[in-house]
């Protein structure tokens, strides 16, 4: 073996090991965070946590039932805003648009993504709260829905583009119209990726606090309907974490753990139900 080849082989082995290290570090961080949350908040997770309303200071046994339901409602609304715009917009970018339009839309999406969450909150506040003179779940859902758009749009577009040309050409050759090709061939082929995009966007907005402060506001009680202020997990975490009571701190960690757990469950369920895609050949 020539020395040059030996060197190249060495570099190959070394770099590939380094990538393994990168992956290990990333995963380790996650497990560390999980462990920390479990350690500090695990004791506060009980049946009460999921079913009771927050208790006053000094009393134990309170829970975050209203925050859990509130977060779920907010995410539902957010996905109504974020997913269709992201998904269909991405289809337009990947399949129909010319270079300039695509450029502009992508640019706009990246700009939107960079807006601080508090500014989105202020924006939603002036659009949905001020005119109606009250805080509401609708306003909160709208605010975080806006935040979902860029991630969904950009990622979905990438995955749609990544579908091999061969599949498209095959459909074309069979005489399928554009829309037919998209709906029956391309989208199913990119299903996995699209799901990843949507779940990533979900994960992102599930933990956002700032946009909710001025829109969904917060609520110690149950929030009926869509027009009232509502509690949410991130806001509860924030409120409890900055308070001077240890019990509230523990509940804040517990809430963080529950939030992560819910997203985890959502991930599992979504992948299980919806991951019926055409298997794209992998290396």
């Amino acid at each position, binding site marked *: 073996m020539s020395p040059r080849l030996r060197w190249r082989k060495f570099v190959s082995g070394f770099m590939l090991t380094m990538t393994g290290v990168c992956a290990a570090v990333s995963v380790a961080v996650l497990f560390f965070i999980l462990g920390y949350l479990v350690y500090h908040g695990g004791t506060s997770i009980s049946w009460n946590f999921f079913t009771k309303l927050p208790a006053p200071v000094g009393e134990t046994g309170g829970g975050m039932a209203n925050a859990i339901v509130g977060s779920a409602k907010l995410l539902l609304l957010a996905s109504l805003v974020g997913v269709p715009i992201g998904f269909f917009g991405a289809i337009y970018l990947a399949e129909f648009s010319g270079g300039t339009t695509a450029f502009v839309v992508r640019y706009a999406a990246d700009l939107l993504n960079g807006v601080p969450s508090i500014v989105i909150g202020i924006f939603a506040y002036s659009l949905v709260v001020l005119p109606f003179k009250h805080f509401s779940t609708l306003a909160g859902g709208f605010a975080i829905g806006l935040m979902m758009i860029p991630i969904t749009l950009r990622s979905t577009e990438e995955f749609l583009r990544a579908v091999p040309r061969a599949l498209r050409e095959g459909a074309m050759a069979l005489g399928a119209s554009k829309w037919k090709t998209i709906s029956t061939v391309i989208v199913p082929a990119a299903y996995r990726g699209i799901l990843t995009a949507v779940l990533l966007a979900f994960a992102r907005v599930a933990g956002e606090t700032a946009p909710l402060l001025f829109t969904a*506001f917060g609520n110690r*009680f149950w929030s*009926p309907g869509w027009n009232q202020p509502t509690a949410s997990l991130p806001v509860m975490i924030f409120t409890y974490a*900055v308070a001077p009571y240890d019990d509230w701190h523990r509940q804040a960690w517990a809430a963080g753990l529950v939030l992560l757990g819910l997203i985890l469950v959502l991930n599992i369920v979504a992948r299980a139900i919806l991951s019926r895609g055409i298997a794209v050949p992998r290396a």
Partner: protein
Amino acid sequence: MKRITGLFLAVLVLAGIAWADALSINGAGATFPYPMYSKWFDEYHKKNANLQINYQSIGSGGGIKQVTEGTVDFGATDGPMNDEQLKAYSDKHGSGILHFPTVMGAVVPTYNIPGVSAELNFTPEALAGIFLGKVTKWNDPVIAGANKGVKLPAEDIVVVHRAEASGTTYVWTDYLSKVSPEWKSSVGTGAAPKWPVGLGGKGNEGVTGTIKNTPNSIGYVELIYAESNKIPYGSVKNASGVFVKPSLAAVSAAAAATAKDMPDDFRVSITNAPGKAAYPISSFTWLLIPQKFTDTSKRDALKGFLKWALADGQNYAESLSYAKLPKEVVAKELKAIDKIQ
């Protein structure tokens, strides 16, 4: 796919069903009294199951803004509204807004000096000097002079202040402006001043956390945070020349001194109050209640709550490290409640 859409829509509809038996009132404002108010509103709810008072702490300024905008029914603030804000409110609503002091608190100087476990005495000159960046070392004569017998290190002082705008900062700077002309002219009183020196910690928790982790640091926090985090806090020399250790009794003393001259609108600063037992960095916290209500059920509910808070409610204060209102102030407030229409 159709099944999922159907399920989705069903959940959407179900979640939207509103049950409307309870009267819901929303309030926003200061973070400092949040534990107190949340306790009060929960206890009051137990007595009146049909009434839900939902209070969220988004900051004193936020409370003032939202109650002016009309998005919440009442507000709460650690620093009274100024004339400009009052005018903005009355311009918008056609009637005024009333201040009601609820409880009181103390802002205390906390510190972390390795090797020093004693309670330090701080003169107004020392505090102003430290926060102005003029006094830079712990063994500076201005500090040492009031703490004879304590060995202070020759280390740089790390100042910690609040990062975000807050009522606590308002009270602290209000005090410093009263005792230091230099502070008043160069920095001033406000919720978010331009700090000459120091790091910014987020929230009272952030400041206590930073102090705990940073040797030779000093900051200011609400009394309850210093107590629950068990960090040392010092005594401050009051206007009568006595070094007073922060305590609920000392805060009440500060309020009692000003109770006699309490203005009718209750907007008063009790920092640097006269009296031997008064703690100089004390403050009221207020509820902001509109003078005119269009919704009579909300009006009556809030009036009922106020009366309860000023009577039975006060009994919950001390266990949460808030100071009760002096009797004279309570009496005056009960009369003022009638102004609410």
